[in-house]
């Protein structure tokens, strides 16, 4: 990381840590949406950006995390974090099974992407008929009036959720950086660039890909679990929707796949523009402006700057290339 990048990171980090002190409720809720998008984008980035495995079904892991945490809480009144970790474990298992099956049977490229969608849609319909978690009618968490902040039970003000998401996002940023500097990070990049060549060099591509998929799935599920306690309601048709998966992948693509800060930059751009669009849409009575923005942003970035906004920005601001 170059000196200027370090300064930029420190400034941004400080600003984000201090933000709840001086912003209002509305801006805080937007920042929560931004941090969630950034975090999910970072998780997806591990799998696609680093290891080159295109998942178009990440809503599956988010949903498994959210539903596990919420169902354990509703039915057994377990500690919130227990459910969240259990959800991450379940998602890791699901991702591991999907990954192992695909890699064993040599399902690659578009077939792999479609397989991830198929598993997500399959699960969505299962949950539609899974009465224990409410089916299509949804699952609701009873909202207790909590005074102050109860981090252990994950009950409290939006400010608490803001800091939890900020910590998650910072954590996965650190993790991504650490992984990229280790052996496995170089293996992943080799697999992404040329898998047969990587295998020929003696890299165990099966296991390396499996680690990327499992890690990405488990981390994604963590956010699902946390957000279950923020939203307090879950519906299979929104959580597992393919459009949710596309929303997850848009931010890292806009920002720059395979870079450390790309998903965060992309999430910031998309969230601010998306909120503006939602407001305009409500004011003018036009539905769908936000989805239009997401579609338009995807087309524009692929046409104009396929590497993403962040590498271009680094270049322009003289931040230097992202070094690890």
């Amino acid at each position, binding site marked *: 990381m170059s000196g200027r990048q370090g300064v930029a990171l420190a400034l941004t980090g400080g600003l984000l840590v201090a933000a709840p002190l001086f912003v209002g409720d509305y801006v805080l809720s937007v920042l929560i949406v931004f941090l969630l998008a950034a975090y999910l984008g970072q998780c997806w980035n591990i799998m*696609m950006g680093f290891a080159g495995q*295109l998942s*178009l079904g990440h809503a599956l892991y988010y949903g498994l995390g959210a539903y596990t945490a919420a169902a354990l809480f509703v039915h057994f009144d377990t500690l919130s974090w227990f459910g969240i970790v259990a959800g991450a474990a379940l998602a890791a298992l699901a991702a591991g099974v999907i990954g192992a*099956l*695909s890699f064993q*049977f*040599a*399902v690659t*490229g*578009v*077939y792999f*992407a*479609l*397989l991830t*969608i*198929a*598993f997500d*849609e*399959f699960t969505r*319909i*299962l949950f*539609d*008929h899974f009465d224990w978690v409410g089916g299509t009618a949804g699952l609701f968490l009873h909202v207790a009036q909590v005074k102050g902040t109860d981090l252990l039970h994950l009950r409290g003000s939006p400010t608490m959720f803001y800091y939890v998401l900020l910590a998650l996002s910072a954590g996965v940023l650190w993790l991504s950086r650490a992984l990229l500097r280790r052996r496995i990070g170089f293996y992943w990049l080799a697999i992404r660039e040329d898998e047969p060549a990587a295998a020929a060099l003696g890299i165990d591509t099966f296991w390396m890909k499996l680690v990327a998929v499992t890690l990405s799935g488990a981390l994604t599920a963590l956010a699902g679990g946390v957000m279950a306690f923020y939203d307090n309601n879950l519906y299979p048709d929104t959580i597992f929707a*393919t*459009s949710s998966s*596309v929303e997850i*992948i848009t931010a890292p*693509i806009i920002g720059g796949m395979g870079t450390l800060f790309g998903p965060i930059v992309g999430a910031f751009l998309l969230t601010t523009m998306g909120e503006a669009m939602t407001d305009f849409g409500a004011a003018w009575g*036009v*539905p*769908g*402006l*936000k*989805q*239009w923005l*997401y*579609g*338009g*942003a*995807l*087309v*524009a970035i*692929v*046409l104009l700057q*396929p590497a993403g906004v962040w590498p271009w920005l680094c270049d322009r601001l003289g931040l230097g290339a992202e070094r690890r």
Partner: protein
Amino acid sequence: MPGWVNFVVAGLLTGAVYGLMALGLSVIFGVVRVVNFAHGEMMVLAMYGVILLQHWLGLDPLVSAPVVAMALFALGYALQRGLLNRFIARPEHQQFLLMLGIAGLLTSSMLMVFGPDTASVETSYALDSYEVGPLILDKVRVFAASGAVLSMALLWAFFRMSRTGKAIRACADNPTGAAVAGLDVGRFYATAFGIGAACVGASGTFLLLLVDVQPYLGASYTLLSFIIVIIGGLGSMPGALLGGLLVGVSEGLSAYFVSPSLKSLFSYGLLILVLLVRPQGLLGRRA
């Protein structure tokens, strides 16, 4: 006669329309090697076209089918010529993302123009049916399936007999060789994408006789097309029809024996199974 027989026959008829829809995807992939993630969205666009034609001119959907197919041909041709031809040599995930973006743009644009409510066409024969022995066949289903089978027959003849069709097949088999032989590969790619779009346009017209439409339906039809094409074998014309019939029957049977809301579960299950066990599809050849 057991009750499920009628469901199987209805499933076969619907499946023929699915087959035409998936054939469009198969042609586009087989020739241009572009994975059309906006396939269902293009079909929904065609469906709204049919509704507008009926609203303005009072046209019956069966009459507007060729009109809509031609409009979709023009759209597909322009899309390939103006945009996608530049992406042939780029990494394939960039194509996917571009098509996903186009799909999102189409869906949200239709949402803005037509609103979120469902819409449908009205026909004088909507509630009529034929009785063939113990079988009861809905007229709309028979018309839709006949239209789809006729379209597929025309397409087959086009690819086998016309010079353009043969040229497109040459471009699909070996683009470099075709270019060396003097064919304008970019133009034939555009024609092929146009033909695929026309297929999905026509199938949308026929399907509109059977279902209602709303802007968000696109994604599920895109997926359904992929399921069918992968089951039958990507790039295989008979495979698309076979896959369509299989999915149609599986939907009919699961609606009868289990629950209509679970019908796509079996299609996704079938897809996962085929992808893992026989990724080239039932009638496809390994690449």
